[in-house]
């Protein structure tokens, strides 16, 4: 018997309830992915400053060092890069610096909306506090303790960093070997699955080729009694064991295919 666990489970998904009572789920990015994006941005900033430094050294005639006005220009650009790079990119490209773009990360408001200039400015000004005492130590600790991996700047600006997911339609489920017409005909034609059942069986059937045959049958055995009761006409056909071609896992997969197959709609008379 499974009893629902009361333990809070750790995950990297944050739920957001909209005012319309719709729940959205976001995959939030933690220290590992954000550190990598930060390093990419750091390399870009360093490359820009190295190129600029080279140009200024050449332009300032002295070939061995930056002096006078060239040093001033370099210092101003370095300051602007340090404080403006993230603000500029995050406010102009809807929460993505080049580093975040590479790792498919995006800064959004806690409600999932795009961030604005003030949000970007606020979260990046607080970067200095997150850096304390050195190496973003405080920021990492705060991120680790927060369920949405927010650092101090995010908490202040009401933002979080999420991982963008490429949504695509799931490929059609294929069974190997393909079901024979006789197998499908042996299944109940009007098998109706509840949403939770359909979701669980979809997961099971899509992963069937990566599960060992014995393990697949063992898993199928967990829910066979449920369907045996619901589908009395088919109950006698449920195998308790057998080969991958005839075992419980195969039966469950066939049930799923039968329940989800598209039936041709009757032509309208008018």
């Amino acid at each position, binding site marked *: 018997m499974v009893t629902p666990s009361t*333990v809070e489970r750790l995950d990297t998904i944050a739920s957001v309830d909209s005012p319309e009572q719709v729940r959205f789920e976001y995959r939030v990015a933690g220290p*590992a992915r954000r550190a990598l994006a930060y390093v990419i941005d750091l390399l870009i900033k360093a490359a820009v400053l190295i190129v600029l430094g080279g140009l200024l050294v050449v332009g300032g005639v002295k070939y061995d060092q930056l002096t006078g006005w060239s040093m001033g220009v370099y210092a101003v650009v370095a300051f602007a890069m340090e404080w403006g790079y993230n603000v500029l990119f995050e406010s102009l490209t809807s929460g993505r610096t080049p580093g975040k773009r590479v790792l498919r990360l995006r800064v959004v408001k806690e409600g999932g909306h795009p961030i604005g200039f003030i949000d970007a400015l606020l979260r990046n000004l607080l970067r200095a506090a997150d850096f304390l005492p050195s190496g973003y130590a405080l920021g990492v600790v705060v991120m680790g303790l927060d369920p949405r991996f927010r650092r101090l700047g995010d908490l202040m600006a009401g933002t979080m960093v999420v991982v963008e997911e490429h949504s695509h339609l799931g490929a059609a489920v294929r069974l190997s070997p393909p079901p024979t017409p006789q197998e499908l005909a042996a299944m109940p034609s009007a098998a109706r699955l509840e949403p939770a059942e359909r979701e669980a069986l979809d997961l099971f059937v899509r992963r069937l080729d990566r599960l060992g045959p014995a393990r697949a049958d063992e898993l199928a055995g967990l829910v066979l009694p*449920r369907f045996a009761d619901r589908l009395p006409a088919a109950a006698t056909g449920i195998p308790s064991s057998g080969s991958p071609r005839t075992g419980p896992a195969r039966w469950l997969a066939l049930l799923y295919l039968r329940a989800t197959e598209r039936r041709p709609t009757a032509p309208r008379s008018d």
Partner: protein
Amino acid sequence: MNLADARVVLRPRTLGEILDLAARWCFNADRVLYARVAAAVLLPSLVLCVVARWAWLWSWTEVWLLAVALCTVAQGAFTVATSRALFEHDVSAWAVLRQWLRRLPSYVGALLVTRSILAIGAVTFVLLPSAWIRVAMVHEASLLEGSSPISATDRAWQMARFRGTEMALMLGGLGLAIMGGIAAAELLGHGLVEVVLQLGRPLGELVEDGGSLYALVGFHAAIPYVAVARFLGYVDQRTRGDGWDIQLRFMALAAEDARMREPPQRRAS
């Protein structure tokens, strides 16, 4: 082991998610348990490294080799602690250490076998990364699956099959985490001792000397994270291979079914 009691949501994850989840685990798991395990296995390792450097006057290269050797064995205690804490509440440090010590001879044997394989790989140089990837999960295979040294090596080898890229990225991520720990501790240590207290550099300097006390502390501090992240990678592999997430969903359906079968009075109570 009741999957429904797992402290983390069991589902297939990307490498980035695993590394992030490991960070969350390190900050949210049973701190007393981890502090006690660290006091039992990491503190003696750190003390031994300090003694080797400042009392026995070993070179930094020798000290780092000692630290790597000691921490390779010590991380097994955190692997055991994390595996216990994933499914059990109120795990005692003593229970963790007892399990680790019981498996220690076989675990050290497995480490010797795999390190020998790495040494052979290092001779050819080209084969080293491939060999490292193949034996990365030997800690879990030896400590959690109760395999003998040879079987653990074979099991680790099997686990890494067809997952070379993922394992390589995982090892790279863990390497970066260790370097991050060392760099952060070095910066923090120097910031405090040299800048705030104005005491100079009495405890060494990583870049100039090749090591320092702060860097050693940072290296040891990163070990629990490394063990947790690799263990969560192992859990991810089991979740994919054994369908743990599917099992949880099926168990929930079966439990709902069982509830519906109960008489209405019992269901209401």
